[in-house]
């Protein structure tokens, strides 16, 4: 097995796991997505009032209660299939389509950036499988690795430009202002100005320094470990558990590209 194929397998396993978990979450709350709910299809479809009627009728059929459960079942089966390498050539493109369908269903990503990163990885894997050869696998993994590095660097650069991030005030506000369901212990600790300032600069340094992972395999390993810890902390502090699995799924692609360049 080539190193690119091995990295592709690991990427498929992790993104399959990420999508399976996301789908199980939607299964768990499907009654709260019913017709009388704010995220139910009747409420969401008002956003398509200006779309062609034939399209809206098609969406009505696709997102009726039973069809929606079927859509989730197809997504779960494909995610498990991808994770277990049962039918990798078909599973990733199917997951791209089901993820797009869910984005239509909720009129945008259901869970913001984690859905976007999941889509990035699914597109990269699909591209690698579609092209089929070693060069194709490199291109697919390269797209995922580039987006991963960009995701950290852009997020860090945006924070670095903001005075309230440099002072730690933004992190304190994030944890105390009710925008997120912040764990009480974390809210107390990050409510201290000195801790918040130190933590803010640590986040900014990690995110802005992430492109260094491209230069050296050891630096890459350290940054991926720090990144994983950062996402675990976000899952605990802010409840952003989906980000952890979506970002982890992109890590093998970056590790592969750094090793290739080393």
């Amino acid at each position, binding site marked *: 097995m080539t190193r690119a194929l091995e990295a592709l397998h690991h990427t498929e396993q992790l993104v399959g796991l990420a999508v399976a978990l996301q789908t*199980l*979450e*939607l299964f*768990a*709350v499907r009654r*709260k997505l019913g017709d*009388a709910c*704010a*995220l*139910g299809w009747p*409420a*969401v479809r*008002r*956003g*398509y*009032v*200006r*779309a*062609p009627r034939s*399209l809206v009728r098609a969406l009505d059929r696709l997102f009726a209660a039973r069809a929606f459960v079927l859509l989730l079942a197809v997504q779960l089966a494909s995610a498990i299939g991808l994770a277990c390498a049962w039918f990798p050539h078909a599973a990733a493109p199917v997951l791209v389509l089901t*993820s*797009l369908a869910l*984005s*239509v269903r909720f*009129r*945008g*990503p*259901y*869970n*913001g*950036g984690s*859905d*976007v*990163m999941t*889509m*990035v990885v699914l*597109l990269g894997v699909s591209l690698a499988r579609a092209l089929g050869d070693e060069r194709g696998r490199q291109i697919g993994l390269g797209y995922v690795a580039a*987006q991963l590095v960009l*995701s950290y660097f852009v*997020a860090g650069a*945006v*924070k670095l430009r*903001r005075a*309230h*991030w440099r002072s730690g005030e*933004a*992190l304190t*506000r*994030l944890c105390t*202002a*009710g*925008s*997120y*369901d912040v764990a009480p212990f974390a809210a107390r600790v990050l409510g201290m100005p000195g801790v918040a300032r130190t933590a803010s600069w640590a986040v900014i340094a990690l995110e802005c320094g992430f492109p260094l992972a491209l230069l050296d395999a050891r630096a890459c390993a350290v940054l991926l470990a720090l990144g994983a810890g950062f996402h*675990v902390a976000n*899952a*605990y502090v802010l*409840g952003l*558990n*989906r980000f952890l699995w979506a970002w982890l799924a992109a890590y093998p692609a970056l590790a592969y590209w750094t090793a290739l360049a080393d």
Partner: protein
Amino acid sequence: MKRPALASVLAPLRVLLPTWRFFDDVAHGLRLDARVGPDADALGPWQTVFPAAMPRRRAWNVLLDGDGNLRLAQRALLDTLVSDLSDLTDADDPSELASYAQVLTLAREVLRTRALPEGAHRLQVQIVQPQEGGGTDALLRSAVHPLHDA
């Protein structure tokens, strides 16, 4: 405010367009309040309907947190409505917005789980932005609507 048909159809494709600008601007979280009563002139006191108290986070929520992520999606509805309101002109009717209908439905959804005064048939909602010094700023106060959707 009149968005072209193409824009409404293309909105879901945002999932294909990474921006990676996380937490660019950190504001105080929006709050959804509601009051109910028998008619528009006799509405009761405001009560917070969203966000409700946070359930305790468990270790396994790192794997699965359906309710937590549903709350994040519901919270995003308030942000979307506030963003949509900023696109309106004075001549536009906010109640025509899809996000307005979703937020109204969110209030009804939460209120269905609460004990309400007998004879309450009307509902008004407001979106409140808590301020730094402890005050609040009402970003939207709705018209009075039926408590139960038709």
